[in-house]
């Protein structure tokens, strides 16, 4: 029998958190009884800058402290790593000129960065950020967190999604769902409560641009179409201003500082600050003081807008394509939602208003709205939110290579996921044992213009005359937008073995190895931290006992009691330098017990203050 007023929350389950793994900043949020909320870090900041620093003794720093180290140790610090997720070196050659990334050899299918003497892939670096967010969540919620919903740009391809999932695995987080960022934002706004209708979500973040058009109906968020550019964002504005400032400096100082990592980082920070101020004031100054020299440049908003108008205009093409694919006229859009820090720029807002002829929603912080939506989705997966359901789409068409390098489309872009397609393959030569299927993503007709996703090798085909085997291959895109392939011999119904060779990204074995390595490192880290914490605790009690022994109360104890305290004190001193935190803790407790009487005696009057703040 349950008592009156007792609420049954069902069996106790660990929380699922929502994570926005952003180009510039990352956030973690969770769903409590009142709704989604962002979890702050131990410095009180809700945004964790997506910056990772690898120190000389192997220690990893993430977030604000890492951002500070970006200035002093740029060669040991990495940021905007999201731009490299699921990519090969050829994809990012352009931006490497402006980012201080150092690429290691063998980066064709997975980029490898040199960072503080180690070689790391983007998923490993992202895993460090995820680990920090997880730590923040665990400290805040007071319980372990092992499952998460992680957001990705809607226009991320298969490899980029897989890389994000890999990052979760390396960080020891089970990624229950990848959610598209604009869709998450729509969830966070809870627009479904107001009415049914059509919503456009315009998401211009640090590194990526997405546009999604959704239909809302009784709690169902059905994405009609999505479009975007995974290489367009606030970073592009920063790089543009940075280039101009560098040229300015070259002519003013007669010296090119673009090869000087520290100068470039300081200048980058200065242009970002000026850019951000320009969203609120009409004129801002780019300020740099470096090695005794000063660079100052005033930037007025109209001038700033002339500089960035091309970048802003690049978002409009995808918007129009998206409307067309959704078969929605501009007039049918009921609401527009703005997401991403870059939508604070007045010119961007103006462009969105002009295009959609509607005043956009900005009630929620554009930097937090995606994380809040991820938390809502986490609530849906936990079963805590029952009235909402997301139906998302795949952003890119999926096809296979056919004769003459032509792509034959199997699943079209903007198909609701999960989605599947089945094709029957056969052999071309008598006795052929293998059939290789090349899968691509993209909208173009030719293989060379699409992005190679993977090669699937149908192996151990029964040797038969050409054309006899009939192998039914099923392509299945799951709710995360990730492809899997299964095959079956039609005649026998026998499962056909398929070997996957991803064109970009890590193999399962590589991810496993990274998990092991990070696990070992994490254990080392944890042990070291626990030992340090135990010693701090020991210092506190040792100091307190030292003081207490000089106190009158000490004289009130018996010789036996004195002896017990002395013994416990000496034992603690003996184990103090041990690396076994449990041993240290055990002796702290022993000393604590031995001094109970002493504490009792001291509890009277002013003596209390001598031991204030200790556990005595």
């Amino acid at each position: 029998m349950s008592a009156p007023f007792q609420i049954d929350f069902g069996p106790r389950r660990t929380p699922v958190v929502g994570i926005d793994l952003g180009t510039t900043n990352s956030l973690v949020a969770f769903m409590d009884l009142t709704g989604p909320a962002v979890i702050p870090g131990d410095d009180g900041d809700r945004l964790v800058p997506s910056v990772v620093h690898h120190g000389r003794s192997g220690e990893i720093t993430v977030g604000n402290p890492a951002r500070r180290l970006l200035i002093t140790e740029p060669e040991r610090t990495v940021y905007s790593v999201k731009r490299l997720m699921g990519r090969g070196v050829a994809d990012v050659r352009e931006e490497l000129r402006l980012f201080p990334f150092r690429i290691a050899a063998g980066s064709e299918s997975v980029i490898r960065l040199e960072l503080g003497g180690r070689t790391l892939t983007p998923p490993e670096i992202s895993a460090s950020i995820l680990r920090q967010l997880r730590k923040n969540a665990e400290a805040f919620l007071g319980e372990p967190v092992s499952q998460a919903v992680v957001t990705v740009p809607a226009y991320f391809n298969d490899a980029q999604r897989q890389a994000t999932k890999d990052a979760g695995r390396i960080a020891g987080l089970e990624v229950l769902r990848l959610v598209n960022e604009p869709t998450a934002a729509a969830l966070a706004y809870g627009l479904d409560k107001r009415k049914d209708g059509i919503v456009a979500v315009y998401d211009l973040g640090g590194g990526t641009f997405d546009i999604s058009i959704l239909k809302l109906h009784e709690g169902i968020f059905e994405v009609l179409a999505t479009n975007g550019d995974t290489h367009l964002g606030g970073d592009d504005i920063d790089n543009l201003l940075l280039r101009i400032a560098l040229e300015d400096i070259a002519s003013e100082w007669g010296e090119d500082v673009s090869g000087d990592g520290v100068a470039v980082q300081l200048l980058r920070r200065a242009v970002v600050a000026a850019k951000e101020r320009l969203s609120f004031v009409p004129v801002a100054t780019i300020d740099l003081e470096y090695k005794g020299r000063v660079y100052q440049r005033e930037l007025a908003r109209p001038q700033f807008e002339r500089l960035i108008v091309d970048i802003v205009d690049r978002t409009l093409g995808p918007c129009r394509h998206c409307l067309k694919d959704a078969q929605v006229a501009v007039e049918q859009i009921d609401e527009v939602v703005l997401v991403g820090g870059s939508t604070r720029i007045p010119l961007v807002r103006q462009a969105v208003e002009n295009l959609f002829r509607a005043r956009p929603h900005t009630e929620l912080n554009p930097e937090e709205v995606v994380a809040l939506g991820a938390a809502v989705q986490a609530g849906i997966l936990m079963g805590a939110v029952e009235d909402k359901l997301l139906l998302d789409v795949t952003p890119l068409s999926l096809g296979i290579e056919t004769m003459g390098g032509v792509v034959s489309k199997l699943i079209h872009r903007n198909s609701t996921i999960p989605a599947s397609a089945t094709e029957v393959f056969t052999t071309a030569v008598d006795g052929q044992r293998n059939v290789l299927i090349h899968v691509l993503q993209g909208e173009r007709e030719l293989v060379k213009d699409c992005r190679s996703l993977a090669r699937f090798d149908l192996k151990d085909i029964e040797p038969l005359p050409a054309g006899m085997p009939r192998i039914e291959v099923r392509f299945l895109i799951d709710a995360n937008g990730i492809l899997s392939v299964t095959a079956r011999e039609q005649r026998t119904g026998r499962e056909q073995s398929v070997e996957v060779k991803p064109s970009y990204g890590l193999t399962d074995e590589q991810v496993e190895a990274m998990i092991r390595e990070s696990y070992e490192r994490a254990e080392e880290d944890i042990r070291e931290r626990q030992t340090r914490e135990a010693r701090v605790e020991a210092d506190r009690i040792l100091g307190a006992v030292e003081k207490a022994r000089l106190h009158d109360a000490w004289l009130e104890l018996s010789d036996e009691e004195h002896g017990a305290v002395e013994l416990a004190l000496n034992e603690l001193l003996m184990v103090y330098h041990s690396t076994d935190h449990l041993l240290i803790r055990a002796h702290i407790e022993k000393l604590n017990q031995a001094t109970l009487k002493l504490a009792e005696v001291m509890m009277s009057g002013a003596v209390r203050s001598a031991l204030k703040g200790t556990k005595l």
Partner: protein
Amino acid sequence: MSAPDYYWFLGLERKLDLDLEDLERRFYNLSRRLHPDRFARATATEQQAALENTAILNDAYRALRDPVSRAEYFLKAHGLELGEQESRKTPPELLEEVFELNMVLDEFRQGGAAARPQLEQAHRHLAALREEADAQLGRLFNEYDHAPDGKLLAAIRGLLNRRRYIRNLEAQVERELANVGALPD
């Protein structure tokens, strides 16, 4: 692994003319029940089943929602495949128009901006032809649903081929116009 019949899956009568609002309602209701989000903490087997079922639901909804793909699905179920080849052949009644269109396209490609209005005119004409085919398709659907007849299915197949031919021409003109960058995309 062969997918179940889409009509059966959605609990629909096997008709060519469908009430789209009813179809959408069924799609939403089944989504609420089957979607993997509802099984995030279930066993791996249940999760896999949710994934498979929802994929079929989405494939079914996609196939039946659009009249053209619905007709293609329907014909296929009746053993009438749409031949790629068939839709490449120029329907006889369009021969003259296609001939003229090709002349305009040639002129346009050779940098004849003056040919643009003519090409736009051709584009509008093709769109009208396609809409006409759609309307005709609707009439055939209705006719078939009232009195199912193999001859009607053959007529639908012929119409689908004609429609596809027109649509390909339309897309070709759109690409040409867009290449010069003046057509709003």
